[in-house]
């Protein structure tokens, strides 16, 4: 009887041991398989090209829509900006040193040039503006982890080619372009066309001082007055002239017609001079478009005077110069 009890206990122990061994085997298999999964999870995210999502052209803060006209500023520069957002699924940051973006380039150029004609280092204020880098094409705040704002700033000169009626490139348009580049040199570009308005503007000296002359004296090409007029716009221009008599402080008056104007350096008595009158007259001045960045464009209108026999003191008057389209 005792022997039978011992045999049953041994059977239970052996059975239990077999169950345990089975459980251990199952657990080991599960564990090994689970660990294998964690090892195989290393992955590589492929680089993708960035995109320029939006481009907003602004003329001194006012939006210029596609095909709209940008107005230049007489005699100085106009602040032009391009703003918008760019995206990169590999991540963006507020600095080019971080994130996947390496550069943003902004360009304004005559459309006929194409972007290849307006690359870095070829700036021509008549037809091409290029900007990039941290100074003039900057990243702004992030929209989210893959999208960020940008702003490119330009100073557009008053003599940039006009693409409206009367402009130097009336048959052309301008293109505003933004290019974004990532760390793998993948790039994307977005463009918008616009027009530059025709700006007729001149800088005209405020005085003509003939100096001190004697009665009945006439000026010559050695002492006449040179009125240097400067192109302040992007349109060819003429000027009209008219004048008044010049009463003298002691005695006498200098008639209007005693002042003479000419387009070349002549003396008062020369055949090519024209007597001033009280009615505005087109001089045919014809100042052209400015094309040189380094040198302002000027043209000279020459003034002579013939003093009458009766005149004394200081004689003063006013001439009127009017800018008109050529």
């Amino acid at each position: 009887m005792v022997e039978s009890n011992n045999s049953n206990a041994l059977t239970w122990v052996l059975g239990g041991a077999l169950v345990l061994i089975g459980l251990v085997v199952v657990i080991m298999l599960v564990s090994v398989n689970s660990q294998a999964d964690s090892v195989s999870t290393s992955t590589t995210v492929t680089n993708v090209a960035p995109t320029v999502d939006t481009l907003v052209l602004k003329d001194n803060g006012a939006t210029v829509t596609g095909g709209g006209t940008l107005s230049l500023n007489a005699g100085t520069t106009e602040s032009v900006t391009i703003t918008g957002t760019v995206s990169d699924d590999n991540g963006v940051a507020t600095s080019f040193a971080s994130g996947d973006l390496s550069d943003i380039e902004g360009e304004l150029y005559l459309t006929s040039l194409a972007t290849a004609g307006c690359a870095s280092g070829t700036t021509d204020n008549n037809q091409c503006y290029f900007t990039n880098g941290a100074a003039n094409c900057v990243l702004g705040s992030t929209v989210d982890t893959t999208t960020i704002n940008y702003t490119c700033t330009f100073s557009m000169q008053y003599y940039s080619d006009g693409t409206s009626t009367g402009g130097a490139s009336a048959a052309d348009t301008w293109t505003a372009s933004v290019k974004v580049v990532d760390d793998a040199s993948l790039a994307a570009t977005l463009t918008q066309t616009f027009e530059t308005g025709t700006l007729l503007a001149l800088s005209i000296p405020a005085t003509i001082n003939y100096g001190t002359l004697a009665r009945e004296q006439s000026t010559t090409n050695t002492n006449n007055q040179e009125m240097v007029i400067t192109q302040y716009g992007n349109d060819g221009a003429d000027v009209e002239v008219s004048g008044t008599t010049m009463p003298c402080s002691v005695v006498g008056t200098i008639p209007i017609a005693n002042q003479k104007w000419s387009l070349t350096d002549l003396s008062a008595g020369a055949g090519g001079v024209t007597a001033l009158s009280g009615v505005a007259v087109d001089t045919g001045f014809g100042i052209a478009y400015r094309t040189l960045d380094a040198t302002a464009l000027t043209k000279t209108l020459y003034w002579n005077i013939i003093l009458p026999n009766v005149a004394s003191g200081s004689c003063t008057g006013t001439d009127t110069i009017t800018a008109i389209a050529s």
Partner: protein
Amino acid sequence: MNIKVLASLGVIVALLTAWLLVSLYSASRVEITPTQEAAVERSGGSLDAVLEGQSMGVSTSVDVANKDVKTSVTVAE
């Protein structure tokens, strides 16, 4: 069956169950570290302009110099 054997078996089963649960929990936490294939760290007014149609008054001036006029008269004897 001896109660001590059953207790031992229970303890062993509990330990093995705990081990199983810990293993499964660890296996479920998979860390994915994305790497970018090609990403590299980089070190770093207007002025006095006369516009179209506008006129500008230009002051003109000239000073007339006094000219000495020599006068003479001859008185007849």
